[in-house]
């Protein structure tokens, strides 16, 4: 199980500025990894390349042994004709229904089940959307700011739950929260502006799983590394 990017060059059609120049990086082994970097650096673009919705780039993306790559982002919406519950039930394969209930419960979505998507608060929308992706078959799930509008306590609960339930999958979590990234992620890909070389740096996170406590110092050290790298 490995994700490898090699010598990626990309410029948006009609745009003058490069997004990537000879970008190479890789993520090995399953785990909850991060894709980090300042706003506008190209995280979303990279995510779209990995998931295959941007193809006109040079270089290679290799996703060996990962047949199902999913990409989810925070602006997605559910169809308007269903309540959240109906939608979730419909898109979840029957064997996963108990998993669905577990997620709904620990993501705090119970009060939303009978509402339409448009009636949810932003954070509720984020969580609902993420839930349905977790109920699909995937080897790699890219979460593009999927929890950006959720409060920190709930977010922590959600991340720990995901890590506990899916230890053998690969996640690429895009977030702007340094603490979070440093604390929960295993590997942290830091993307940097295209005139820095290399354009991507890989760091080690604390990979906190809610059980063994982590040393405050290590966390701070890690955060510092991330900030310096970016």
């Amino acid at each position, binding site marked *: 199980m490995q994700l490898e990017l090699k010598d990626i060059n990309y410029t948006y059609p009609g745009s003058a500025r490069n997004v990537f120049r000879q970008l190479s990086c890789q993520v090995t082994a399953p785990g909850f990894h991060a894709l980090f970097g300042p706003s506008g650096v190209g995280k979303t673009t990279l995510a779209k390349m990995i998931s295959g919705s941007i193809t006109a780039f040079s270089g290679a993306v290799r996703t060996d042994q990962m047949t199902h790559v*999913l*990409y989810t982002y925070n602006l*997605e919406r*559910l169809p*308007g004709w269903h309540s959240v519950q109906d939608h979730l039930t419909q*898109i979840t394969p029957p064997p996963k229904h108990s998993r669905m209930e577990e997620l709904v419960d620990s993501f705090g979505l119970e009060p939303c089940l009978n509402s339409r998507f448009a009636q949810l608060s932003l954070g509720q929308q984020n969580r609902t959307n993420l839930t349905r992706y977790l109920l699909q078959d995937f080897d790699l799930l890219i979460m593009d700011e999927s929890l950006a509008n959720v409060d920190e306590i709930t977010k922590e609960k959600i991340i720990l739950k995901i890590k506990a339930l899916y230890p053998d999958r690969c996640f690429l979590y895009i977030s702007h929260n340094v603490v979070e990234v440093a604390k929960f992620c295993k590997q942290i890909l830091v993307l940097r502006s295209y005139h820095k070389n290399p354009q991507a740096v890989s760091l080690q996170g604390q990979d906190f799983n809610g059980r063994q406590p982590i040393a405050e110092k290590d966390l701070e050290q890690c955060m510092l590394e991330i900030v310096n790298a970016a």
Partner: protein
Amino acid sequence: MLHRRIYQFLMIYFIGFAGLMLVKYSLNLSDYVIPGFSEIGMACRRYFWLYLLAVLNTLAVAILGHLLSICMATLVGIIGRLTIWIGSFIRVAAYNIQAYPIVAVAPIIFILLGDGLSSRLLIAAMICYFPLLLSIIGILSEPVAEIEHFFESTRRMNWQLQVKIRAFENMHKLMTVIVGSATLAMVGTIVAEFIAANAGIGYSIRIALYQSDLAKILVALFLIGICTSIYLVFLEWLGMEIKKRIGSV
């Protein structure tokens, strides 16, 4: 609601009517060119019920034709939305057929279908389906990325779902077009009757035209307007109910 549409129609009708009368009396035209009050009154008394029945007959066919064209437009819209060759072919076909004035195609329709209800229906549908088709193609061929992404990437997308998503997101526009095209269904039916000359108010209008009897035409236009308004009010009510049911935003 009912109330407003109807009285607005009445206002419009009487504004038009007053305009005609103004022309008549200021240019001192005879009753032959523009009929006077007494003649219109007489035509009204004499033909009101007859014409009302004719309009109701027409309305019934128009409603059928409207349904038919909603179905046709949806069907063609669904196929025409495809970006592949057959889609563009269907779209071109739909456009080209529409480009033919019904008067030119009518003889061919009559040859192929005879002159029963079916030709009347087909002509009505042809006149009103095209505006529907245009909107439906426009709506169905524009992706709603934020909703479709999930289904695309989990390989759940099929054309039914895609159509459903796009239609639902554009419910308001669709409703406007469906309600609006009702008047076209009415026109289509009247034109069909006018050409086929068998029944309905279109037939009556044709006779009145031959006899250059504007008084009768004015009565017919009044009844057509009233009945169309009532149908529109009904459709709007229906649209509102549907919206309420499915809880669209």
